[in-house]
């Protein structure tokens, strides 16, 4: 098992290979440097080239818990960092009210607001309730009532965690700003509890599909790794790794066909590595042994996700060019 403290580049390379993640130094070196420097790694690339997978592999090879924060528009601190368990707090307050023998309408007023008036202001608390209320306040804002969200969980993890912040480009600018404070200090302040400092600096992987330009401040705090489509040889190795039962010849044909589609300027959505894996799996499941015209016609929708692209390859000339490319032959003149 790898440890961050004794990590070396060859060891990391070997661990990634053993885990079945096929890549070269262009990926391993930035990953290694980011871990060694304790800096977040921002991974960019087309969808489906294995960006998220890096965090998963790291979690496996370091035997570290994977904490994932899926970003979306409108994501805020409550969902990302921490939240107070309101329902539980309310129950505790009600239980306290019942125990202290307070009048029932006073209880309903605490916090729920449904009666439209506040019990604290309007109701007359008993003379002995004042110190108990401050106790209660301290209690309901204790750790027991704290809901850890991914960022806090990664900071407080007993073991070094891998924190995956997926699709950071989907969040708002404000959240991005909030995030880079955490990412550079690895600590966060909760007003009621104090400052939480990371027990172990988590390994942070951020992914982005570049649908929005990230701020320079965030980029500056991260190392940038761009993952491109793999070359034919690497993609072949990936297929061999990921698709059991795939015959060598068919694997080769899939790789060549996918590369032809990617190289076609008229294709709108280029098939990703994930899609070529799906395609190979489909072919295996359907017992195709060769990528002939019929196999192509029946399964091409696994890699082509756009109507225009499907129509493009419905054209016999394009389909034939693809079939020839899959068999490593130059297209007919």
């Amino acid at each position, binding site marked *: 098992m790898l440890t961050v403290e004794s990590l070396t580049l060859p060891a990391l390379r070997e661990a990634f290979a053993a885990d079945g993640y096929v890549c070269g130094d*262009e990926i391993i*070196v930035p990953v*290694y440097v980011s871990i060694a420097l304790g800096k977040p790694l921002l991974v960019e690339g087309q969808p489906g080239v294995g960006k998220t997978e890096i965090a998963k592999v790291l979690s496996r090879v370091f035997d570290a818990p994977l904490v994932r924060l899926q970003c979306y528009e*409108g994501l805020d601190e409550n969902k990302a960092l921490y939240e107070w368990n*309101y*329902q539980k707090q309310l129950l505790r307050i009600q239980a306290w009210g019942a125990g202290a023998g307070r009048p029932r309408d006073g209880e309903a007023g605490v916090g729920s*607001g449904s009666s439209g008036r506040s019990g604290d202001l309007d109701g007359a608390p008993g003379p002995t309730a004042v110190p108990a209320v401050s106790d209660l306040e301290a209690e309901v804002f204790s750790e027991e009532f704290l809901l850890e969200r991914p960022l806090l969980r990664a900071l407080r993890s007993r073991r070094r965690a891998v924190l995956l912040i997926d699709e950071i480009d989907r969040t708002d*600018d404000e959240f991005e700003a909030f995030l880079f404070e955490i990412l550079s200090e690895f600590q966060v302040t909760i007003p009621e509890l104090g400052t939480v400092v990371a027990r172990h600096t988590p390994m942070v992987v951020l992914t982005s599909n570049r649908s929005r330009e990230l*701020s320079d401040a965030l*980029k500056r705090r991260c190392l940038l790794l761009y993952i491109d489509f793999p070359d034919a040889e690497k993609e072949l190795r990936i297929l061999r790794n990921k698709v059991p039962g795939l015959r060598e010849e068919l694997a080769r044909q899939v790789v060549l066909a996918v590369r032809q589609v990617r190289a076609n300027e008229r294709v709108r959505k280029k098939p990703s590595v994930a899609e070529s894996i799906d395609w190979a799996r489909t072919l295996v499941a359907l017992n195709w042994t060769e990528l002939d015209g019929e196999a192509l016609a029946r399964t091409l929708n696994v890699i082509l996700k756009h109507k225009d692209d499907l129509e493009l390859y419905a054209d016999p000339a394009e389909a034939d060019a693809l079939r020839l490319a899959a068999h490593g032959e130059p297209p007919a003149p």
Partner: protein
Amino acid sequence: MTGHGRAFGAGPAGSRAVPLIAGRGFEGSLVAFASLLRHLGVGVSTAEVMDAVAALRVVGLSDRAQVKTALQAVLVKDLSDVPLYSALFDAFFVPPEERRRQIARHAQRAAAAREGSDRAAQDLRLGDRPLSLEERHRRTYAGLSEEERQRIRRFLDRAAEDGRRQPSLEAIVDRVVRRYLEDRSPLSAGRPHREPVPLGDESLDACLSEACLTLAEKEEGLRFVDLESVDEAQLPQVEALIRRLSRRLATMLSRRYRLSRRRPAIDIRRTIRKNIGTGGVPFRLSHRSKKVRKPRLLLVNDVSGSMARYAAFVTMFLYGLTGPAGRVEVFIFSEDLERVTDRLTSGSGFRETMRWLMGGTRQWGRGTNLGQALRTLFRDHEELLTPSTVVLVLSDTKTLAVDEAVGRLAEAGSRVRDILWLNPVPAAEWERVPTVAAFRGVARMYECSTVQHLERILHEVMLRGTPGGPLRG
């Protein structure tokens, strides 16, 4: 640091090892490298340089490919800078003997340039009297095609004959030639790339110049080639590049994209739904977010002299971005303004766009008057100046009626979302052009002479709404 001395300073001297700059050491070399990157427009912060030092401490210097990858991860945060970084890395981390060769080659190129300038000084005379020109004019002359140089010489010969009869012509001849050369400066044809502004350090300058040369030769380097100097052979590649980049940017735009800034208006339905868990008590408010509308682009192209070529490239890029039904309006101006939006279609190549831009226009080959052009814009197309409009002015700022133009631009600025000025003159030379300062007061000015510049600017405009902070490059 001492602990690393053995591992990094001396390192295995194999062919894959990375040589440092003599006398600068490990950190000094990195600092110099970062300063060169900055010089070429890649924003590198001090914190990133420190990270680079730390990164090399863990990676070592023994494997060139690893060092290159590690430094790239730390120093280059914009993918489009990667070719530039790569060329600079290859030119920078070289053994001393190669550095000496670089310096020699650089000196040779400089000598050739000087020779051209000397010849220009000889050619550019009115009879026996040298014209009153600056060095940059002579450089421009040296970069012109032989045909154009001949044209100027013939003009001077004729003027010399006339001048003998009418001495008062002399001053006019000076002005005409100067203006002619300025129209072409610094966009001289036939120059494969724009020489970077020298730093004054022989070895670093040689390295810079070498990197820029390599870059210009590579296909990916086309991004960094001055659009004015794109030749026939490169044209199809540049067209394909523009098409690819603009389509990529268009794909990003087509994603659902909403304004991220919170709006004061509360969205009741969402608020209640969000607070069901708290019995409907609105603990967390949801605010209405407004869908971002892509800005309407209004492109005002200067088509006088050498500007027409830039205009065609920029127009191609915009059309690739917005599609035929896109919200883009294209105007050209020289002496006056003309709307050409209806003549254009998307997906056209350079020549077609050029034809559309210039075909049937009365503006070809005339003087430049932005003031008059803006007056016409206000008079005839006032409805286009809305708060969602971003005005892009493409011009080298050389115009008549500067004061009027500045005033009108300021007026337009109060009515539109933003005014961006795309200036093909390199930023380093802006100081020397007085009109630049005047226009910078009323528009954000960006250097825009390459596909790379263009892509960056539009990326910012379209994906961020308005460019935030200074653009690099």
